[in-house]
């Protein structure tokens, strides 16, 4: 009897391990293809993995170094886990000030650095009001992004605009985990399809337009000072 139970336990352990390995491989495979459609979008594309083994695509676009990365948000539960797409545009010219605008914040936006920032600004009337606007040390000039924000956040999937002296970043909910799988098994399983090039291109253009506007203003200031 004991041997039978022991054998059953061994068989069960092997089956569970195989199932786990299959799930890990499936997930890794799905992740590796997430930027397949976007590779042609950038010049000199380079693929690598971040600390969480999630893919990062780096390259050049419209004269800027850009990087696309994803974040699986399984921190907040009792809600379908989102998959955030981070679109980062590296600066060609350092700008003054910082700014982080997050809509519908719940203070568990771990991908954002601003939870440790001390400055808060009042949200301009034309911007989404269920939001938080923060800065550290010195705020970036709101007038430079005022024209972009209302249009940018019309899309409910847009979550955050982060402006730093050396880059600008957009955070966008590109996918949500499969609802049925989450409701029944509490698993975060994302649809195994690459991110659409159209979505990424539209976001990249907006991120670069914002960065360009900031840098043009910065260049004007420098020219005047010179």
């Amino acid at each position, binding site marked *: 009897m004991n041997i039978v139970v022991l054998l059953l336990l061994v068989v069960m352990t092997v089956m569970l391990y195989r199932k786990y390995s299959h799930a890990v491989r499936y997930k890794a495979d799905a992740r590796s293809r997430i930027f397949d459609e976007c590779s042609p979008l950038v010049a000199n594309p380079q693929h690598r993995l971040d*600390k*969480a*083994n999630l893919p990062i695509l780096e390259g050049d676009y419209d004269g800027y170094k850009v990087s696309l990365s994803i*974040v*699986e*948000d*399984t*921190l907040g*539960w*009792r*809600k379908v*886990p989102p998959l955030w797409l981070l679109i980062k545009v590296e600066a060609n010219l350092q700008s003054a000030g910082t700014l982080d605008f997050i809509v519908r*914040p719940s*203070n*568990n936006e*771990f991908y954002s650095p601003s*939870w*440790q920032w001390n400055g*808060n600004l009042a949200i301009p009337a034309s911007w989404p*009001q*269920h*939001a*938080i606007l*923060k800065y550290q040390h010195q705020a970036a000039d709101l007038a430079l992004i005022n024209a972009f924000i209302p249009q940018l956040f019309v899309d409910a999937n847009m979550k955050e605009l982060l402006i730093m002296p050396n880059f600008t970043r957009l955070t966008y909910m590109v996918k949500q985990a499969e609802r049925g799988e989450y409701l*029944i*098994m*509490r*698993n*975060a399983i994302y649809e195994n399809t690459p991110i659409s090039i159209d979505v990424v291109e539209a976001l990249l253009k907006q991120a670069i337009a914002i960065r360009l506007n900031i840098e043009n203003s910065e260049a004007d200031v420098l020219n005047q000072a010179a």
Partner: protein
Amino acid sequence: MAYTMLCAADALVVGDLMKSGAEVMGYANLDTKPFVVLTVAFLAWLNYRGVFATLTLNLVITFLAFTSLIVLFLAVDPLHQGVVLQHQALLTDLPYGWIGVVAALQFGMWYYLGIEGTCQAAEEVRSAGRSIPLGTMGGMMTLLVAATITWFVATGLMPWQYLGQAVTPMYDAATLLGSSQLQLMLFVATAFAAIASANGCINDASRAWFSLGRDRYMPVFFGAIHPKYRTPYRSVLFLVPIAISFAFTGLLDQVITFSILSGLLGYTFMTFNMIKFRKMWPLGSIHRGYIHPFHPIPAITLLTLCCATYFATFLGYGASLLSIMAFYILASIWFVLRRYKFVKRADQFTMPWPRPKGY
């Protein structure tokens, strides 16, 4: 703290269950402490690795534990009194009268600890008006069925003198039935139920601690996220020694008392908050996903239950009541004088609501 203590109590049950199992197999006086440490450490590791793995585990093992309870209920032939169940002989008059029932109220409240979580999911469901009553009633029905089966079977098989100090009554009930299969099943089910509960508690407690850190109610150190697993790993690790040290006392009833008193304080404040909230933002001033038709009756009922439970705790565990109250009063003084200046309220209240009435 309520959930950390609850985790300690669950780990204690697992340890005691292992001791009972070892006795059946001929190993008397097994040390329970390694099992307590193993339970908490294993679950902390799961939570350190990722929340969704832990929640899936919970769902599966809770389902198995509940099924075992139903099987046990069917096995005692509940329709024929006197065949297996001996309620006529064992369920005699109330040994301490109704004051004894009142004195046990804290354990009754503890059984339902966490059911308010269904309401906390209000903003994350598609239709709060439909889901909140459905979720709450579904949760309450599940708990009521399980609680009724537990007391019905246990009191039909064991005298109240034994049940008063039993750590694993359902396993004991299965042992008394003489079926080794049933005994094994209840052994596994009891372990599963305690582990599932402990797992949920580590998950809840660490996230609560993490949120306190993010909102600056606690040092920001606890607000950190693991760079790879995206979990509040510092909060998870911080709570492990606290849970283990309470479980090491071996005093299940004392640990439960600490747990429920912590929860009870939260419930007490909820009653005032429910009434205050409705006054500050009257109906129509903000969008509400769900409006309770009988407000403020639920708040008053809860406050009455809380007061009765404080009294019940005073009857049996006066020293524990006083010590935990002293702890929370000192913690509150520390918070008001030292910590509150770090809290950033503007970061927490970001919804574009109108100014509250009277402010």
